[in-house]
């Protein structure tokens, strides 16, 4: 690979790291201004003043904020996320399982939805403005417009309760056979696919149609290629950058934005984990989750950028 590309890629990664640092400051500040007090939230309605006082002292809640920030950042850099205030468990350990579950669900949804969306997008372009295109777009938009909880409940009612094809409770655990695991996540994957499908499909369609206006497409047509060959050989490779961008955005959504789906299907992922700890004001966990989410988001976007750079011949072969 040539130097300008390498330089650009290195720049992107450095930007990403800087951005992550900035986000860490934001996360820390944000968790500081949450209303309520950690100790009070842990003990809840039945907190006695004595127990409250003991807990506050134990947690070192009296140190100044900037000291706590650097202590925290230092911990993260050495791989130590600390212990959860509420349960006393090691955050890295419990977070790892949850993150793995989330990635599993997200990748399953991506494996189904990305090829499906791009395929449907290509089809829509091939038969653009015809009935096929209209049906694909219409159904896609309808499925995206329905809120996740609604599609989720519909699927639970028909597929899990009436037909009993798949379980409505998607609890997965370590050591679960792979087949059972897939059956357990079938419904949430379907919901997620329906949610992200239309966005990617429509963007694919738009990006390729854009390219289709170019002169070289006309040349290809004139040299007698079939419409599908034109799309796959000439239009699609040139439309990759915007498509990858929107795919990455949706992948990020699949990882960081699925709390509702997790709650409905009782899936032990990161979202539920984060919400539980926000409710308990378990600041170290909230910070760790926030940082993981930020890292996922930033790295997926870096990947999108890099793909865009690499797929751009003008950058690959500079004059």
């Amino acid at each position, binding site marked *: 690979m040539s130097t300008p590309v390498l330089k650009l890629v290195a720049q992107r990664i450095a930007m990403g790291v800087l951005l992550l640092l900035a986000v860490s400051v934001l996360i820390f500040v944000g968790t500081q201004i949450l*209303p*309520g*007090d950690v100790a*009070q*939230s*842990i*003990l*809840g*309605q*039945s907190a*006695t*003043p*004595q*127990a409250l006082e*003991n*807990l506050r002292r134990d947690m070192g809640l009296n140190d100044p904020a900037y000291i706590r920030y650097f202590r925290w950042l230092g911990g993260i850099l050495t791989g130590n996320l600390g212990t*959860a205030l*509420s*349960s*006393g*468990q090691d955050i890295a350990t*419990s977070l790892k399982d*949850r993150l793995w579950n989330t990635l599993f669900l997200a990748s399953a949804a991506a494996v189904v939805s990305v090829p499906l969306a791009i395929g449907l997008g290509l089809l829509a372009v091939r038969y653009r403005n015809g009935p096929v295109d209209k049906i694909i777009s219409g159904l896609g938009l309808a499925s995206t417009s329905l809120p996740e909880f609604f599609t989720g*409940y519909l699927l*639970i*009612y028909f597929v*899990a*309760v009436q037909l*009993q094809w798949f*379980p*409505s*409770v998607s*609890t997965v*655990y370590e050591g679960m056979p792979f087949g059972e695991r897939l059956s357990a996540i079938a419904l949430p994957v379907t919901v997620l696919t329906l949610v992200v499908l239309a966005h990617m499909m429509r963007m694919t369609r738009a990006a390729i149609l854009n390219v289709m206006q170019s002169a070289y497409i006309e040349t290809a047509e004139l040299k007698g290629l079939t419409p599908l060959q034109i799309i796959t050989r000439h239009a699609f490779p040139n439309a990759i950058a915007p498509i990858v961008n929107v795919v990455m955005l949706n992948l990020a959504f699949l990882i960081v934005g699925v709390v509702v789906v997790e*709650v*409905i*299907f*009782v899936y*032990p992922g990161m979202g*539920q*984990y984060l919400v*539980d*700890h926000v*409710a*308990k004001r*378990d600041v170290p966990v909230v910070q760790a989750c926030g940082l993981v989410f930020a890292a996922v988001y930033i790295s997926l976007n870096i990947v999108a950028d890099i793909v865009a750079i690499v797929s751009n011949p003008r950058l690959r072969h500079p004059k």
Partner: protein
Amino acid sequence: MSNELDYLSRRVALGKLSRRDFLGRAAALGVTTVFANSLLSSAALAEGPVKGGTLKAGMQGGASTDSLDPATWQSQVPYKFGRQWGEQLVEIQPDGKLNPKLATEWGSSDDAKVWTFKIRKGVQFHDGKEMTPDDVVATMERHSDANSKSGALGVMGGIESVKKDGDTVIFTLKEANADLPFLMDDYHLMIQPGGGKDKPTAGIGTGPYKVVTDEPGVRHIGTKFPNYWDGDKRGHAEQIEIIVINDATARTAALQSGQVHMINRVEPKIVDLVKRVPGVTIQNVAGKGHYVFIAHCNTAPFDNMDLRLALKYAMNREEMVKTILRGYGSVGNDTPINKAYPLFSDDIEQRKYDPDKAAFHYKKSGHDGAVLLRTSDVAFPGAIDAAQLYQQSAAKAGITIEVKREPGDGYWSQVWNKQPFSESYWGGRPTQDQMFSTAYYSKADWNDTRFFNEKFDKLLLQARGELDEAKRKAMYRDMNVIVRDEGGVIVPMFNDFIDATSKKVGGWVPDGNQEMSGGYALSRCWLIA
């Protein structure tokens, strides 16, 4: 067998429908008496305890922040799981009486200040060690340590010392307390090896099930402990599992699709719908839990007794029970005590909705302008609707209630027990003394109505040391009347616990001490083969 008949015969077996009623309804469904009778006997036969299988419960009230340390328990799931793997010295029965558990007998000195518990012999912990009086003493020490974060710290506050004496444990109290044995049922006070001082989260107890999987906020699994001391009485299923399902719709769907056998917290709103689902039985039982509107007796304008009376008369209790609880509950009488409590006097006059009296007292109070009521979704299920109903019933008495909706996040730290007029709930306590000591005694931390009444305090302390039940009952009656007439609490309703079971569940015992059959559903029930 039709679902209807199936359902009815199970109702008979549960004792919720008489044989005669059953035959009548069966006839209405076009079934002969002989066939109906044979159905009945097969349903009754199926009710004998069945061993084995995995009994699963889908429950609300678990989070990934839960821990196995009994001192930290607050919510339903860890506490209900704890009831299956751990045990206390005593256990409160569905009728409100105490049964021996890890203590075989107990008694007190004449002044109710020194209590002696004889500790059961031959009880094994899940790690194979035998439970000793030393473990009991250590457990009590851990929960009464001022540095502990135990939820039982308040309960343990009145205990001066706990000592071992041979095979007994002696509690010396600061003040007399005739109810001390009841306090020992507190779920935090489960006996752990060495009191759990070294490893509070070890999850080792003496219960019928031992912990095998503990994934907070996801699921908790126990398998039968072969050396359980109470053998056949508890723990019929080979394995039990609690799956945390906080979403009400998902919980109901899991029951319907057979993924779980029982669920807690069926919302009153949907009970009638769930009832119609084939194979599902609603298990509702009147309990001690109640919803409250609390006014601070020492803060203007609520320091005016006439205003408090006006607010009490302006509450339409029947309507609340009908609308908010859909009939799954009973009306309250502005005291936290109802007939579910031991030593309850049922001859206290029931306060009724009376706009005229409300208007009279309101005028007498001289208050002018709106009364600000703070509420939130989390105050209790239907709290916002209840506030609006109250607003309407009060308006008819000429009282303007301004409802302010607060965020649920932070409600318990910023609004409840801080703001002068708000909505809240209480889960109830085993005895009247505990309920009053927790929230109405002038020195209580959670005196959330800021109720400072000398006569009441005096009666409370007197009753606590009184071992004569008739005299205690009379004292409690007086105390209830004082709270009802002078207190800052408005109690519109007592809510039922509403759980649901599938047709595979046998042996359900209605127990109003807590939801899920007093918390013991998983070890009391069995799977019908």
